[in-house]
């Protein structure tokens, strides 16, 4: 693999925000964050200490991006393969260093270099094309809602599932699997919200509030996904958006 050093150094400069610079320089490699990480708790090896996750990133900054492909591959494997960005370690770090944010930045570097893990890349593509990461079409979505509503009406005759209703109080959103694989989940949500009698609506266009861009570390795509949902919520003039479970 050849490295586009220009892109790399531009990305590195882009990512060097206030916190990143601070955290990379003050981490004292004291290892107290180890207590926080479930990777370490399950298997206490040096690579599983959270501070270790940022070593490749530190390396890149130190060498100003003049590195070979193996460094980038290590970066990818470390930042995607050994961290869930759960932030538990932050609570154990004396300085309160946000390892998850640093891992996010490291993932961003991997993305810019074309190293996004294929599974995430695929989901992200779906999300941008269909508005949800499993590639459910609008017709499928509407049909599923109708079907689950009918089922629900057998127990709860008054149940409703308003679609694209302007001025509702809440906008309901889902994880795409609620629609594609586990429609029972949709049933349960409708049941709960109907039982509680809240004034809600759904959107036929933007009903997936998950954001794979966030996981991938791809801020540009994450922003587009978030904007899709946010714009819809604002257009429908809802007071609150209920995120996916």
């Amino acid at each position, binding site marked *: 693999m050849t490295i586009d050093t220009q892109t790399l150094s531009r990305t590195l400069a882009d990512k060097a925000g*206030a*916190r990143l*610079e601070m955290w990379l320089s003050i981490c*004292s490699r004291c290892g107290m964050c180890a207590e926080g990480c479930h990777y370490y708790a399950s298997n206490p090896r040096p690579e599983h200490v959270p501070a270790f996750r940022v070593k490749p990133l530190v390396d890149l900054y130190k060498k100003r991006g003049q590195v070979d492909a193996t460094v980038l591959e290590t970066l990818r494997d470390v930042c995607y393969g050994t961290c869930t960005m759960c932030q538990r370690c932050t*609570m154990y770090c*004396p300085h*309160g260093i946000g390892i998850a944010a640093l891992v996010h930045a490291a993932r961003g570097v991997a993305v810019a270099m074309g190293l996004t893990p294929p599974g995430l890349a695929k989901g992200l593509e779906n999300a941008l094309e269909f508005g949800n990461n499993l590639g459910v079409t609008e017709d499928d979505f509407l049909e599923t809602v109708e079907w689950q509503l009918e089922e629900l009406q057998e127990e709860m005759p008054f149940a409703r599932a308003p679609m694209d209703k302007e001025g509702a109080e809440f906008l309901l959103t889902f994880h795409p699997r609620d629609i594609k694989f586990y429609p029972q989940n949709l049933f349960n949500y409708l049941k709960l919200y109907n039982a509680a009698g809240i004034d809600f609506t759904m959107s036929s266009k933007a009903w997936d509030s998950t954001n794979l861009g966030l996981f991938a570390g791809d801020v540009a795509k994450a922003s587009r996904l978030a904007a899709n949902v946010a714009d819809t919520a604002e257009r429908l003039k809802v007071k609150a958006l209920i995120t996916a479970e």
Partner: protein
Amino acid sequence: MIHVVYNFAVGPMVWLAFTICITGLAYRLIRYRRKAVAAKKGLPGDFRTTWAVRSMLYYLLPLNRTAKSSPWSTVAGFALHIPLLVVAFFLSAHVIMLEQSWGVAWPTIPDVWADVLTIIALAALGFLALKRLLHPALRGLTEPKDLLVLLLVALPLLTGLAAHRQWGDYPLMLTLHVLSANILLMLIPFTKLSHMALFFVSRAATGSDFGKRQVGAW
């Protein structure tokens, strides 16, 4: 010869060291502030001061999880920092020097205390160094410069103690003490020792975030 070095070290070099240390740290703080403002993209501020302060207090008091999860290291951390700061600011020899050049002074601690505190700090440094060398996971994480920093902090303490107790050659020890202290000061802004100022910023930033997310101080 030693007097020439000594005079330079307690004269111009002290000025240089403090200037570098203070402007260096100030630069880092200003740079942080500038970048943080840029990242906000003009959005209204939503900094949670109460949570930020609580976050710092939680560490400094210490009420935090680290104190429970890594008690020994936390004890060592405090056993290093408290004596370090107390001795640096309240040792009579230091205050006298300040009084001579600036005419300001404040109460000092008895010299025996200073000796005891210094020994505690050195023991803490020893513990931290040993932990770095012996703890398997920490050894993998440690870089040579981490040990170097520990040594750098230990040197002024050691030589200061030696000078006061009249171990070895007094003028030499005193000169080494002043030299190593100056070097330490000059390196603070450029190493992880910059945490001296940034600790508060980092803890505040994360504390405010945790407050926003209704997680609270930890």
